[in-house]
């Protein structure tokens, strides 16, 4: 890595984080009331005390499970609908206004409506699914549309079966852009699931513990849970981006 790239890739992000923590610290000291804004040290201490608590892991585990379940279902449906749109222009045009409505629908409306319909245990899953579905549908559809038409023509010339075209051209070509979309949507899903858990007061969830700490004005604990949610989103997004990087390096980079 050249010196310039090292500065850009390592030093710059660390500087940004350090500046953020410094502003936070100065603000917390200036306010002087940890009930309103605890210092980063107090938040970190709250985070470590959470780590010693077994329910912390159970809550995180359940939130991850809800997030991933919602994500997997939404992704599966997005693939099916994108496939139908790719092979049938009429379906694509007919489905287009529905995805637009789903995309512009205020998230809070989705949450409130779903909370009327289903129980608090399943509400976060359905809410996350409904909100991320149009994002994933668009990602998969754009990835399919981005497949090199010259290669599609080559496959047709050599009489590839549809199955062969799907597995040897479409899926591998779509993987990099789909993985980018997945990484963004996955961390967004964590935020959504937690927000839905807060409003639904879902048993054994990060959202419920956050709601409790807000009700008892335990700001340091609330921020500690927030830190846990950030790390969770960061971890999921990072894992997918790492996968993408390895994939692109193997097949695409000269």
């Amino acid at each position, binding site marked *: 890595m050249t010196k310039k790239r090292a500065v850009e890739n390592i030093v710059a992000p660390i500087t940004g984080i350090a500046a953020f923590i410094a502003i936070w610290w100065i603000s917390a000291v200036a306010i002087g009331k940890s009930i309103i804004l605890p210092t980063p040290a107090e938040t970190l201490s709250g985070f470590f005390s959470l780590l010693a608590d077994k329910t912390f892991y159970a809550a995180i585990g359940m939130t991850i499970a809800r997030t991933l379940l919602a994500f997997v279902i939404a992704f599966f449906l997005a693939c099916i609908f994108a496939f139908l749109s790719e092979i049938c222009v009429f379906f694509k045009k007919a489905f287009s206004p529905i995805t637009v409505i789903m995309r512009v629908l205020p998230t809070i409306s989705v949450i409130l409506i779903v909370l009327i319909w289903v129980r608090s245990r399943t509400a976060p899953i359905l809410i996350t699914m409904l909100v991320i579905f149009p994002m994933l549908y668009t990602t998969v559809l754009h990835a399919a549309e981005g497949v090199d038409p*010259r*290669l599609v*023509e*080559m496959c*047709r*010339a*050599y*009489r*590839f079966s549809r199955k*062969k075209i799907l597995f*040897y*051209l479409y899926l*591998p*070509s779509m993987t990099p852009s789909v993985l980018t979309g997945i990484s963004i949507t996955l961390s967004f899903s964590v935020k959504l699931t937690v927000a839905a858990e807060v409003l639904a007061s879902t048993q054994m969830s990060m959202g419920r513990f956050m709601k409790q700490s807000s009700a008892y004005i335990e700001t340091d604990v609330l921020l500690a849970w927030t830190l846990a949610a950030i790390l969770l989103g960061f971890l999921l997004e990072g894992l997918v981006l790492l996968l993408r990087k390895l994939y692109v390096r*193997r*097949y*695409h*980079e*000269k």
Partner: protein
Amino acid sequence: MRNEKDTCFIENLNVCFEDKVVFENFSLSLPRDRITCVLGPSGSGKTTLLKALAGLLPNSTVPYAKASFVFQDDRLLPHLSALDNLAIVLEGKKADRRARARKMLADMELSDSEDLFPKELSGGMAQRVAIARGLLFDSDLLLMDEPFKGLDLALQERLIRYFIKYWESAPRTTVFVTHSILEAILVADKIVILGKGEKGANLLYEKEFTMPRASRALGDPEVDALRSEIHDLLISL
């Protein structure tokens, strides 16, 4: 396409894109198991002719054959090795397909590259793999669309040699589109020139060329005469 003993006939080909007529009642005969080179100015319909013969045009009226298509660019699948890019166009068990592909790569002197991905191949090597794919595919017709375009002269000559060497070991009816007169003279059994007419492409020139390929070289009076004849015709278009 109608097949007779020594000739394949393309009859009454009609192709149009929206309002533009590319071919209208166009007919051409291709000597069976021989190479027909197609020359002509840009936009005269050379590539469209190949696509129509391969069945790649939805609005073409000519019955198409099972064809191998070697494109101007390599069009290799980026996620498959050179070997698998060849094996994938074959039918049968995987081991048999890979064995046939391996032999073809060896014939094209590409054995060392069989595990390389397209991004790891040089332009010339990738195009050689693409030609190997076209030759390996079991088809009635081999279609080549300026397969050596954009490559340096030395590489072009080497690739032509590889192609001729393999093609002569298993001749098949071939339509070879090129802009290079010399390339056409080196490979063709028949040369045709397409022109742009008011009602689509028309056949301006048709000539069988029977001189043995091994003796074709610049400086040979027959080669030079043919070269000037085609050059003058193309310049006048």
